[in-house]
């Protein structure tokens, strides 16, 4: 089963163009959607999750037209929104059971087994009878994951799932996803490059509503391999370097800036060669484009 997004466009009523001619094909397995805050990730995910209309374009999942056959899509969909809340005065078992009914799990004993397994799986078993209002951020996020897994969905959309999880929880969650991802389409949006690197066989980078890159993380890294150079400089020099080099990222290390530059050749001898990372790809596309735009003006 393939999810094919073609020429998707969306402009909000306040004039913000959230999606610009988006074309992506997503195969079974984990697909990472990388982009900074406000890039249009959530808009795209909501549109795939049948919760938002597109102005034009199409999305198909196998034989299904996602934009019109919403009901059919929802049957095989697991969705974890970026931000969500819960009814505060009921406990996890009740709400999960409630949602399982809405998913169409009508057999009571099957439902019970499923709910219990999901609570085990997301490590919420001990807190299953506590009111959701008293859950910590991480617990709530795990609950969100649990509900997205009800009824073995064929299409899982998880929007920024690792935000708010501590490192251990994050690992466990990523493992969980990879377990499921084998014969399912899983779309994972994130602004954390590591998540994609560790999990995804395929990815896209998106910014300002446009797809800047599509392909596998490995290919992406290969694309910039050997072109990434680093240098530690003084703060006062920063402006100057910005003007003269294609800086893709700046970071502080022990208070001194370290700049990363994309260049086919060594810019000068003071730059050190460094192994390319997915993060560099990411920054290349995000800031590379902005810099080009600035240059074009």
């Amino acid at each position, binding site marked *: 089963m393939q999810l094919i997004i073609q020429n998707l466009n969306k402009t909000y009523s306040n004039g913000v163009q959230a999606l610009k001619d988006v074309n992506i094909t997503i195969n079974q397995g984990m697909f990472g959607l990388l982009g900074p805050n406000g890039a249009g990730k959530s808009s795209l995910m909501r549109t795939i999750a049948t919760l938002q*209309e597109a102005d034009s374009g199409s999305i198909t999942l196998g034989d299904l037209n996602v934009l019109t056959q919403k009901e059919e899509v929802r049957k095989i969909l697991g969705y974890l929104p970026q931000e969500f809340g819960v009814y505060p005065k009921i406990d996890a078992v009740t709400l999960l059971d409630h*949602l399982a009914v*809405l998913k169409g*799990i009508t057999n009571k004993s099957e439902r019970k087994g499923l709910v219990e*397994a999901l609570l085990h799986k997301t490590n919420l078993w001990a*807190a299953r009878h506590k*009111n959701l209002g008293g859950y910590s951020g991480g617990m709530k996020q795990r609950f969100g994951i649990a509900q997205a897994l009800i009824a073995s969905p064929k299409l899982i959309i998880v929007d920024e799932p690792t935000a708010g999880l501590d490192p251990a929880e994050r690992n466990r969650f990523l493992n969980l996803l990879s377990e499921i991802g084998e014969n399912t389409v899983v779309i994972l949006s994130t602004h954390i490059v590591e998540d994609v690197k560790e999990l995804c066989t395929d990815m896209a980078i998106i910014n300002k509503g446009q797809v800047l890159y599509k392909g596998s993380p490995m290919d992406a890294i290969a694309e910039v391999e050997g072109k990434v150079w680093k240098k530690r400089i003084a703060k006062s020099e920063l402006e100057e370097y910005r003007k003269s080099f294609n800086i893709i990222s700046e970071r502080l290390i022990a208070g001194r800036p370290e700049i990363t530059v994309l260049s086919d050749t060594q810019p000068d001898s003071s730059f050190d060669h460094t192994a390319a990372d997915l993060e560099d790809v990411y920054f290349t596309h995000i800031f590379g484009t902005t810099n080009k735009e600035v240059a074009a003006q």
Partner: protein
Amino acid sequence: MFKDIFLFELKYRKARAANYIYFGIMFLMCILAVTTDIVQIGGGVGQVKENAPIVIAQMIGIMAVFLSLIASAILGVAVLRDFEHNTEAILFSTPMKKFAYLMGRYWGSLVVLLLVASSLPLAFMIGDLWPTREAERLLPFNLITYWQPFFIFVVPNMFFCGAIFFASGALSRKSIVIYTQGIILLVLYLASQSMLRDLEQKEIAALLDPFGVRAFGFHTQYWTPGERNTLQIPFEGYILYNRLLWIGVGILVLIINHFAFSFNVVRGSIFKTRVFKDERITIKPEETKIPVAQQFTGFSTHLGQLLKLTIFYFKMVFKEIPFIAIVVAGMLLMFLNAMNMNELYGTSSYPTTYSVLGLLAVFNLFFVIIAVLYSGELIWKERAVNLNLIIDAMPMPDFISLISKFLGLLLVYLVLLFGLIICGIIIQASYGYYKFEIGVYFGSLYTETLAFLVLYTLLSMFIQVMVNNKFLGFAIAIAFSILVGFFGQMGLEHPLFQFGSGSLGTYSDMNVYGHFVTPFTWLQVYWLAFVVFLFAVAVIFSVRGSESVMNMRWKSGKLRLSKSLVRMMAMAVILFASTGFYIFYNTNILNEYSNSDDREDLQVDYENTLKKFEFLPQPKITSIDLKVDIYPSKRDFTAEGYFILKNKTSEPIADIHIQENAESALKTEYLKFDRKNGIKENFDKFKYTIYKLEQPLQPGDSLRMDFKTTFVTQGFVETSKSNTQVIFNGTFFNNMYFPSLGYNEGYEIGDDNKRKEKKLPEKERMMERNDPRGLAQSLFGDDADHINFKIQISTDKGQTAIAPGYLAKQWEEGDRVYFQYDMDAPMCNFFSMISANYAIKKDKWNDINLEIYYHPGHEYNLDHMMEGMKDALAYYEKHFSPYQYRQVRIMEFPRYASFAQSFANTIPFSEGIGFIAKIDDPDKDIDFTYYVTAHEVAHQWWGHQVMEAGVKGNAMLSESMSQYSALMVLKNKFTPEIIERYLKYELDRYLQGRASERKKEQPLEFVEGQGYIHYQKASLIFFALQDYIGEDSVNAAFQRFNEAWRFKDAPYPTSANLLDQIRKVTPDSLQYLIHDMFETITLFENKTETAEYEEKSKDQFEVTLKVTAEKFRADSTGLESNIPINDWIDIGIYGKNIAGKDSLIYLKKHKITQKENEYKIMVKSKPRKAGIDPLHKLIDRHSSDNTKGLIRKGKEPAS
């Protein structure tokens, strides 16, 4: 610091658009109220000018109740907003003093609130200067009129309400608590309203109402129209106490708030949300396998989902604290009202199921709040907790979410209604009444109330979905439900235009739900189809996902137009249209439909066209013989027979003017005379025909007029307009349905303001007392003097048909029963026809047959009625004259009207006023069943033996004389304390009645149909008269009057004739009483200033009393002037009797000639209280200060 915060608050508020909107709304409402009919909040009626101080104050007082809603919005958030916007951490860490912070915010907000509130006086001021206002209905402009109520009512109310809202917002940090507070205030206000009905609780009610409206009402309740136009609002008495009380409460609240408020950011709330530790135990998530569960779709799955969600939302509502608060508040108010149910003269009724249902109706207001609030809350529930995207992505059909929310609420209603039934049963049981009619409970609550709830819930859900903003949705839903009430005034009177129209009408034990069920059912189906359609539209547009823009909702909504949804909408439209047509067919085609404007125009047209015939000489009816067949199950009747008409004038009469009744169900099949005639003129519109006899009717000659009238009920009309006289069980109508002679003045418009609008001249309510045309006709009209009467009346088997006369024959034919009634002596031209399923109680007094025809089950007071008849007959025969008939019959009729009425030897008596009265304590409660019986029996003398002329003062003869007669029967039967209590109620009702007089208050001798004078004032006057001159003397005067006028045809007697007789039996020293009591409006202001006693010896007590007495004469508007006093007035002293109750140990009339008086009186036992006119024989607007507890000289009060 305080100043900075105060000024910051003002600056902050200045930028808020909401405050300007509040101001605008209040301003607009007030302006509209005084310049148009769209908004109605009180106003001047009759003689009271539209901008009289009291009218403006009332309107400001009522609007101030609404202002409290705005107060919650402005003051509630004064501190709360820091928590809602999460600025508290920043603010509270500044070195700011708590006092300055709280007070700065409070006073700043209060000033803003008061500026908003100033819209009221400003709007009324401008409204009164508006050019379209009629100058003659206004007083000269006076600034104080507008601003005084503002400072007396609005400022303290806002101070107090503001303090409560401010504190509840600051302490709870939750907006929902503020709204709940508002509901509690409302309950207090409503509770004080129900208490106000009871005379003994009025003072408490006046204090209890936090808005001061009741205190104001209490203080001004007896103000006459004249005073209303002249007096400013006094800041004294209960108004002052009430204001001080609630300002005090406000200050207290602010103090509590100051000490309870804390700058801690993390609240120490009572309802702590516990944060649980994430316990990790030995389960290894990695090893857990998620089992495969089968996923189903399809109808049964959706049904299961619907069920699950329904129960889910149902439980959710029941867990809401505000919901519980609303329900508890509603129930509280209900039980409070239950304490004084259905009171009449302080006597309560049996808590029959229908009267308990009336009580439960208090809860409807709370139902509306719940429906509007929780339809909004549920629609927004997922979005409020931010769970919407997860739920929206679930694979269930689009309508399930909305329907389950509706069904959840429906379930809430079902449970609440059941709870109400339990409450009703508890109330009944607590009164010791165990005839629970569960069927009636269910039949009313689960039909009428439930239908109303369903309609409003679906409507409100539709509004919420369409406007897609919770608070705007609330506002529109509430505004709509208020506006519906005004549709009628905008000309949309037809039930098809009035949302939710169709009521189940009045329930009667006799007629049960009667014929109201049919229109009710059709209208409910009609409106249900309407809201179902709206609901389907809501399904299409409901927000699923993150799109909230209308065209995007339409884009996704189009996909939801499934076959079944389209089919549902089509069915709703078809059902709506077809029921609409069917209702229209019934109300407008089968029946005649006219709105009130049309009817008024017809009245005007009638008067303009035919008034010239009003006094045209016509023959008089001398004999009536009828066959009336009543078909209760079809609600039809036919009447066929003849009138004998006799020319009693001295001129020949050629033209006979016949007026048929305007009721559209009535048709005259034929009307013919026994001699040649033709139609001279026919006014079809007015059902008025002039026949011309070929040979004029010579003086003294008679002719026979045969006619047949049919009454056919076709289809149905709306409940409020439907005929409640010809019904399934308890038919009761009179001869008004039959043709009458000449112009009927009763069809004219009576209200002077309306007449002016329609360019008709002002009109007197009755003819002058010496008008010869009036003297020539009796109170029963000018169609006849006395008549011979015979009637054959039939009805369906199982019912009994009754008309005046003696039963001569009774037989059955098929499924019909026939009764022949003959009257053996001439009687008045006023007769009733009655048919119902009756049980009969029979008795005899001397040779007179006494019968009560009653609804089986209403046996409670039959003995009281029987006794009333006997005692009354005995007293009247002894003191006035022999009874002219051989029988008295009382027959019960349904409570669509609540009166009893005397026809010749026949007294229809409403089931609502005595059949279910409950006398708890015969020493304390007034037995009004007994009393009403005695009054109606008295009419057989006053009204039937002596018919009076139809001129001013007529009711002083029939009604007032009956009041006196019944009161004397009562006096012989019951203790003086009961009489005293009765008179106290009469005094209250007289003073209230004159306060709302629309035209002019008349002295008793010129009373023109004013009930508060000919009933209430007359009770007081005649009771005092017999106290002054003696019962025997009054009776002697009555007897002589009776003797002089008994059974006489025209000319008829007037009040002057009775007064002549009374003058003859009144000693010279008391002749002034007649002038005071009958010829003028005289009031007293009697008061005990100090009352002390001294114990001279064991059985020698000297009482020293200082009393003041003033005498006033009022003009027709109620303006008083002081006149010299020279009157005999009671001085009385109470001790305790053996039973420990107050009893008079001294009562004597003293001649009082000056305002201030002092008395020293010796009594033999220990006195407790004393005063002037202790029994309230004189009319005194402050009767409670007449007596005072006695103080032992130099000691504490002896209480």
